[in-house]
């Protein structure tokens, strides 16, 4: 690569880097896994050691069964939340980005400003609850879904807009000459071309929304529709003496992002560094 085509592989530096990475980044995850495999007594020592006996199945069953299968319900809730919000986000953000990128009017400046504000301004919590309550959406899943959509729009619009800029306008013109209206142009011609950026948006937003703790905490409180992050947080107080179960819980919640990471590493990287080069 550029910076270093001058130098060969440096073995000493490499070994130091790998050892450091093991201590700093791998050990915490190994600690999670090992503790999740231990018996209660052994886990309570908080040692970084190999389990004398593997209690994986038992711990797994205990965590899943805790509080009437709360974890299962939480996973279902989180899945509904993630899938619904991401689906809505993709369509709405792509529509905005499409018109925003293609057509310059007196609205363009205002909308760009709104997009940036959405990235920067911290949401006002209690007034949002007040609005949700007026709409009858407080403490409901649809309410939380719309919240995630509202807060995620800016980021998605930016990603889509940057990508749509690379789609040639000639395609639009050809479709228009063929008699396509705006809806057909967008859904039949443009949207299929956005495949790669859609995957990026879906993956990045899924991980973000799945990991979201603050919005469910404020807008969807209560055990009934707890999401996985809330469940984990609530478990942490009741499991203060059962570290094996706490870490099994952490382990289970880490698996979905891990799967995303294994399959979509490149897409995630593309999405998260989108703004870096342009600034």
């Amino acid at each position: 690569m550029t910076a270093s085509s001058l130098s060969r592989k440096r073995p000493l530096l490499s070994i130091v880097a790998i050892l450091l990475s093991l201590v700093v980044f791998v050990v915490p995850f190994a600690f999670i896994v090992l503790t999740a495999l231990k018996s209660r007594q052994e886990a309570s020592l908080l040692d970084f050691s190999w389990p004398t006996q593997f209690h994986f199945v038992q711990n797994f069953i205990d965590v899943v069964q805790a509080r009437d299968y709360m974890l299962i319900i939480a996973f279902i809730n989180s899945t509904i939340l993630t899938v619904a919000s991401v689906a809505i986000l993709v369509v709405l953000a792509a529509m905005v980005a499409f018109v925003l990128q293609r057509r310059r009017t007196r609205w363009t400046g205002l909308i760009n400003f709104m997009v940036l504000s959405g990235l920067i301004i911290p949401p006002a919590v209690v007034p949002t609850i007040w609005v949700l309550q007026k709409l009858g959406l407080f403490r409901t899943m649809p309410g939380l879904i719309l919240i995630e959509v509202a807060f995620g729009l800016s980021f998605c619009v930016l990603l889509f807009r940057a990508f749509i800029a690379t789609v040639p306008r000639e395609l639009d013109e050809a479709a228009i000459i063929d008699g396509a209206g705006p809806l057909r142009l967008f859904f039949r011609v443009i949207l299929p071309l956005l495949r790669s950026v859609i995957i990026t948006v879906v993956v990045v937003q899924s991980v973000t929304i799945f990991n979201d703790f603050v919005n469910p905490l404020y807008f969807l409180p209560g055990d009934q529709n707890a999401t996985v992050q809330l469940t984990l947080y609530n478990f942490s107080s009741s499991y203060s003496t059962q570290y094996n179960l706490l870490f099994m819980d952490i382990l289970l919640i880490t698996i979905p992002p891990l799967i995303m990471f294994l399959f979509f590493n490149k897409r995630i990287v593309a999405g998260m560094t989108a703004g870096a080069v342009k600034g």
Partner: protein
Amino acid sequence: MATDTTVQRAARTRGDASGPAPGGRKRSPYPHWFYLPAAIVYAVLFLVPTVTSFYFSLTRWSIFDSQFIGFDNYVTFFQEPALVSGLWHTVVYAVITSGLKVVLGLGLAVLLTSQIMARGYLRSVVFFPVLVSTIGVGLTFTILLDPEEGLINESLALLGIQGPGWLTDPSYALVSVALVDVWKGVGLATLIYIAGIVSIPGEYFEAARVDGASAWQNFRSIVLPLARPATFTVILLSLIGGLRSFDLIWAMTRGGPGFTSDVIASVIYKQYQAGFYGLSTAGNVILFLLVTAIIFPLSRYLNSKEVDL
């Protein structure tokens, strides 16, 4: 193709039926009403709360009614030492995290774009914590940082160092949480820097080699100035994240011990839980003002110093 055109005509008439004609003349293929669905969600759930927060912060507010009380909430906020210190902690936390993310992220990115072994592994392992649940990371590190039994202090004891009570000592709690934040977030900074460094044209390095530049000179005169857009992105992103950060602090210390690691976002939550909605919203407005006062001028300043590659 005949069927195709009928479908198209149908689609077009449908398109005509919805949406008001802008200007009345020739219809644009990029209609404004495409903004509408997103705009409604955004306006109702983001803009309205943001705008009304200014009014509600001036009221004594229960969930049923609000009573205008002027600036009393702000007076309360700034008279209560625990709340004012939250403001200060927010700034400290944001500065520590974004400063360290810039320095470590740049260092790691230079390392991970150089020719070293296991580069793919190293990149993955540095980045993965970004994707892990903040609550999970917080709970894990709370246990690793336990003063007596925690792995970190036990390891330090093996080296003959007496580790502090990271999260239980008032003078360390905030910094400890900030360090965990850096652990979790540095991978994103590294990625952004890698993207920036990779986009630097190779000719610069070739010219430098012809001139016999050292590795340090390469870094000083090529990487550092030309990766500046990446630096701006990292600073802005981590400041925005740091100023409003809540979940990691809440998972690790709940603002304690005492109020020594309370930030504005945790103050907002505590006041909300206590039922002081007006005061909570005043905290929100203060956070809003703090963020805009720092981010908008900074981003304008940074953008004005933009370089061309």
